[in-house]
Each structure stands twice: as structure tokens, then as C-alpha cells.
């Protein structure tokens, strides 16, 4: 089991998980979003190949209303 932080909250993922698994749990299909792993952008094209490691910190963001 991997203990990670997603958007500031502790989350667990099974060993061997890839980043797309985290995104899948957020039901973002068809939406524009972006993922950062430990301060580095994970391009959309690499979500399925990028491994999740214990202790990783993720930020997953969308666009919202702002000025």
C-alpha cells in the first residue's frame, strides 16, 4: 500500500499504481485538468506510465472562476 498526499489530503493507492489511477478516482473524464507530482508537471500523455511512489505529493487542478 502506498501512502500519498493528493491536494493536501492523505490517500492510499495499491502498490504498482500509476498516476492515471488517482485521476480516475476523481471522475475528471472530459474535463480539463492538470497534475503535478512532487512539484513537477506530469503531462497528460504520461499519466498512464508514471508510477506512484510512497510519500508522493500530488496537486490536481482545474480552472475556476477568477479575476
Amino acid at each position, binding site marked *: 500500500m502506498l501512502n500519498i498526499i493528493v491536494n493536501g489530503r492523505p490517500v492510499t493507492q495499491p502498490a504498482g499504481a500509476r498516476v492515471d489511477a488517482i485521476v480516475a478516482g476523481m471522475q475528471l473524464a472530459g474535463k480539463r485538468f492538470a497534475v503535478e507530482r512532487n512539484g513537477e508537471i506530469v503531462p*497528460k500523455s504520461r499519466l498512464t506510465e508514471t508510477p506512484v511512489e510512497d510519500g508522493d505529493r500530488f496537486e490536481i487542478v482545474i480552472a*475556476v472562476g477568477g479575476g
Partner: protein
Amino acid sequence: MPDNNNVDTTLNNLVIAGQSYQSRLLVGTGKYRDFAETKLAIDASGAQIVTVAIRRVNIGQDASQPSLLDFLPPSRFTILPNTAGCYDAKEAVRTLRLARELLDGHKLVKLEVLADDSTLFPNMPETLIAAKELVKDGFDVMVYCADDPIQARALEDIGCVAVMPLASLIGSGMGILNPWNLEIILDRVGVPVLVDAGIGTASDATIAMEMGCDGVLMNTAIAKARDPVLMAGAMKKAVESGREAFLAGRMPKKIYQASASSPREGRIGS
């Protein structure tokens, strides 16, 4: 623009980072009642560039809910992601890298690094650091800044594509509090100068444009009007009106000396 025959429309286009825009009004998308109202107001404003904020997805949020960009598709609008809420350069740069990924490599961004929660004044030292980093990283940076000609010029020298001094505090609606500083910025800075923050009503936007500003960015003045859609239309006209007055060149002011508009000759009984 068929209803604008007397104006050279090329002069009337706003050019930022090589892109030409017919509308000189840029609008934010915050503080509206819902996305439907956001869209109606933005359509009425005629704005082509709209700002958005970048925020964490709420874990467990209802995915069936539409998102802002469903209402404002990037195919129709130039989406200008901002760094609102960032208090240092590092956070601002991270936010805009996420925005660039989110918008498929889009380079035009609005940098704003804040210094203080209650005034939302820009933190200029951190803004300069972030601007340097972003320009180096290939971003086209429009930058919210103090109405300080020296700082504005420094941002131009770094390579920012537009400088956006505040008229007054963000969301205050107080209008242009220091037109003299703004005049110096307009005089000293070569890249487009847009007033960002502090516009309260249509005449504030017109004054900015009459002074020679290249554009105006506003959010609260429209979103928090009693009728946002009506105000959005008013702002569109105000910006166009101010721009045309600037291009037309106002008459000189004559202090203590009236000048009759009607002929003095031929009055009855003369």
C-alpha cells in the same frame, strides 16, 4: 466593424504578444451567481480574453457538474489563467505551469503575486522574480503591478508582454486613484498598459481608455453590479467610447476662457 466607419479598425485592435484582439475589455469570471450568468455577462461584454483561476479539484466533488470551461470554451475565448491567491514567486510559477498543462501548452498568462490579504496589493519583489522565471520558461506574461512607473518599466525590461497597474484596490470599485502615475507609466512603457483592478463603473473604464490605456481588465464591477449583464454591456460601450475619444484627440481645456459655439454675428436686434 461596420458601425465604426470613421475609426481605423487596425488602430482599434489590441495587440498582445503578436495576437490581435478587437475587444479592449478583458473580464474575470469570478463572483458570479452561476456559470449561466457568467456566460451571459461575458457575451454582453464582448470580451475575447477572460481570466480564470487555477484551483485544486475537490476530492469527492460531483463530476456530473459542468465546469467553467464548458461554458467558456477555449476554442472561443482566449483563456487567461491567473495566479490569484499566490503570495510568492515560487507558488505563482508552479500555478502557471499547471495552467499551461491544463490548457494544452497555452502561453499567455496573468501573473499576480499578492502581498497582503486585506489590501491585495501586489508584492513587487516577488512579482519581478516570478516574471523573470516565467519569461525564461517561454510564457507570455501579462502582469498585475503597482501603479509605479519604475516597477512597470522593470517588468517591460524583463520581457513581460503587458503591464497591468491597479487603478485602486482589487474589488474596491474606487476607480483610478492616481491618474498622474498612470500617465507616467503610459509615457514610459512601450508594451500595452492595461488598468487591472479598481474599476467601479462605466465612466472609470472610459477615463482609463481616454488617457490612452490599451485596455481594461475588470471582474467585480460587472459581477457585483445589480444587473451584471446590463453592466457588462455598459462596460463594452465605455471602453469603446474611451478608446475612440483617445484616438479622436480631445479638445484643449481652456481655463477661465469660454468660447461660444454659436455665431456672434446676425443676432436679432443687433
